[in-house]
């Protein structure tokens, strides 16, 4: 079996995997990082979104061996200790989650959106989230949360720059 090595949430990890093992399976089964979810089998739902080398990726569309040498961040790696990432905090403040199942993918996707578009409009947020399905919220509060999260991230970036 092939061996893969990668950095996950800042830690160096490696393991032997079946060549057909998906990245999401490696994260969930080998590393026990179960915050990344699997909601479909056609790469539509986005519950499995993680960051690979800083960009959002559906971890069910990538084999574990394809992430060899990469830097992967999962939802478990977003907070600083017990202090949530501004986007996580915004989701809580705006009631942007109900059952929580799609939430990790939503947060990871939203953070990547703000990285490329620091002040997205409602239409841009709704368009960007086309690859993340939520059945609970009707997206209303998710849109509010992403907008709020973007504002918090901008404020933090501004504070860091000053």
């Amino acid at each position: 079996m092939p061996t893969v090595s990668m950095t996950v949430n800042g830690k160096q990890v490696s393991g032997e995997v079946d060549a057909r093992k998906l990245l999401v399976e490696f994260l969930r089964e080998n590393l026990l990082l179960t915050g990344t979810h699997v909601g479909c089998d056609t790469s539509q739902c986005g519950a499995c979104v993680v960051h690979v080398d800083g960009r959002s990726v559906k971890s069910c569309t990538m084999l574990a061996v394809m992430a060899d040498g990469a830097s992967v961040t999962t939802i478990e790696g977003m907070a600083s200790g017990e202090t949530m990432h501004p986007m996580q905090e915004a989701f809580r403040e705006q009631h942007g989650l109900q059952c929580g199942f799609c939430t990790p993918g939503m947060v990871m996707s939203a953070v990547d959106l703000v990285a490329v578009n620091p002040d997205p409009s409602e239409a841009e947020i709704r368009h960007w989230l086309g690859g993340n399905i939520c059945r609970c919220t009707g997206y209303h509060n998710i849109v509010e949360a992403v907008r709020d999260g973007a504002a918090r991230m901008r404020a933090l970036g501004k504070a860091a720059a000053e």
Partner: protein
Amino acid sequence: MSNVTGIGVSVKRKEDKRFLMGRGNYTDDIARPGMTHGYILRSPHAHAKINAIDTTEAEKAPGVVAIFTGKDMAADGVGSVPCGWLITQKDGSPMNEPAHPPLVVDRVRHVGDQVALIVAESLAQAKDAAELIEIDYEEMPATVGVASAATGPLVHDEVAGNLCYDWEIGDAAAVAEAFSKAHHITKIDVTNNRLIPNAMEPRAYIGEFDKGTGEYTLYTTSQNPHVIRLLMGAFVLNIPEHKLRVVAPDVGGGFGSKIFHYAEEAIVTWAAPKVGRPIKWTAERSESFMSDAHGRDHVSHAELALAEDGTFLGFKVETTANMGAYLSTFATSVPTYLYATLLAGVYKTPAIHCNVKSYFTNTVPVDAYRGAGRPEATYLIERIVDKAAREMGLDRVEIRRKNFIPIDAFPYQTPVALQYDSGNYFATLDRAEDMADVAGFPARKAEAAKRGKLRGLGYSTYVEACGIAPSAVVGSLGARAGLFESAVVRVHPTGGVTIFTGSHSHGQGHETTFAQLVSETLGIPLENVEISHGDTNKVPFGMGTYGSRSLAVGGEALMKAMNKVVEKARKIAAHVLETAVEDVDFKDGVFTVAGTDKAMPFAQVALTAYVPHNFPHDQLEPGLEEQAFYDPMNFTYPGGCHICEVEVDPDTGVTQVVGMTAVDDVGNVVNPMIVHGQIHGGLAQGIGQALLEECVYDESGQIVTGSYMDYAMPRADAFPSFKVDNCVTECTHNSLGVKGCGEVGAIGSPPSVINAVLDALLDVGVTDISMPATPAKVWAAIQGAKTAQAAE
């Protein structure tokens, strides 16, 4: 304290942090020691006889632990997956209730029917082995659509005409009399499209058996673990409750689809002791499409008799409903007691009759999906009301107002069994019209026309029955269980409180809302309250969460248990403060003695309860823990008005929802943020039904919409931001005055969307469109109308 965390405050949710940080504990996240993986081999055919199953090669495949078929389960005496609601037909005979084996023995009846369980060291190995199983299928012709089910091939040989039941409600003679006096009769044929619930977390189960204690454990993605324990233990596997633990941990959405006892739960639980190791099974999404109970799927013809001034005189309805291949847990109640009893809607129609025929087909079982029967009733009523107004040249809002049940008519007895306790349909309509800026609509329509777009406005004024359900009522109607709820309030020695509730949260936020009730009632901080749910070994009993019942039934049970706690605590305080119990007041978390400065905070009473050095033991027991069961007197009746505004592009048929306003009366509101979130979600599912979603089968019984590539799950860009508000009339028969909010969005909205589409298309001559109003359908309707006009 109560003004910060009590009733009526949008407290941020206690459960969010764990979900947001990836610390949830969903069933598929659980790995038990020595766990194996199960894969269920499913039927690729809608209807076929199984002549032989050969597992020889598969058993030799790498990693395979065991393979089981229906013959193994049958040989073990495993029972049929039961149906929880017996419908008595109009001739007095019981419904037809064919057997539903968890694994089939010699015949498959729908694509996705369970044929074999393969247990292996890894899921990949189990799937590899499944490919080596040889099955000799002899295909049979299938019955697919409900409209032709009566004359189709028999799904069950013993069920003639595929008829599950022929049932009626209402007074046919009174309706005939009303129709004989009608000035106008409006007729309509509608289909309530079949939907696939699609909770984002696929179903998942882990079956486990402890050889030492003889105890089974099932981890399950269920909305009601105690119900699963009862149904599976007593009726399928013959395991007594004290040897069966059912745990429903964090559950990723349900919408009804996780109420039911599913075959796979029984399969993994039954097989666990046979392999001597835990077995996990998790549905792939494509399995969900062919094995989760579907929703809706009604075809109806209705006629409304009206007087010259638009007063409704009588309403008669003929409905056929699809049960699928087997009866799911609550399937039979959906097109009957959850549907036809709502056909009065918000109107004082004096005579109503409805005949429902439910049929078996070679499709996935159909059962309750968010709203369950009430959306079907609402859609039918609100479509025909709009049509009647149009035919008679009356204003669609005025015809509604004219026929609304008057504010002073409550409690109002409908002609179809229900008695509405409270409501004010005028208030919700007025508020919704205001919020939707109906007055500004003509200008918006004119502006849209300049851009070549057709703009329409649609109304839905609705009522529903939830808070399911009064046991006496549902029992008399055929429910095989009472639908009460239980709660235990355990006060700990240092003043913290754990609530054990039979309600189950799978997104609704009980950990917050129920904690708010505790904070308000006992006067303690929110962080001192823990809500425990979903484990039959922790919670003594429960009926679970569905039918918008958690607060109205589970919350009431909690209030009742807390009242008992306060009464006992009052006795303890009286003892310590050396006064009569009657003289002890309790307010804001402090026991006081009237007319004195004697006081004792709740936490101090709690500690005293557990260190009772001088209790009069003949009068006062140590400890502070109480249990209560609450069985409601009646259903609760949320209602309201939804107004939808759409823009249709006549060149493409694309409909965009540009405004969605919902004003719902859900009674008193504990947490407005959570209530509005529930309504948002319901609206999205309602708009999804109206414009996007449909489960499509081809003629052979194959699911055409079997993945997210084909089934139009609503994405973020399908919706505008919603405008949501509440008007309040209190429920008159529960202490909190609450009604329930989980389903209103999905119940009220679909007809508002379709009425808006038809309003938009009025100018181009389109008078009917079916759900989902897809671009192709809308475009074809526009072209058809153009052709018809050209021919005239």
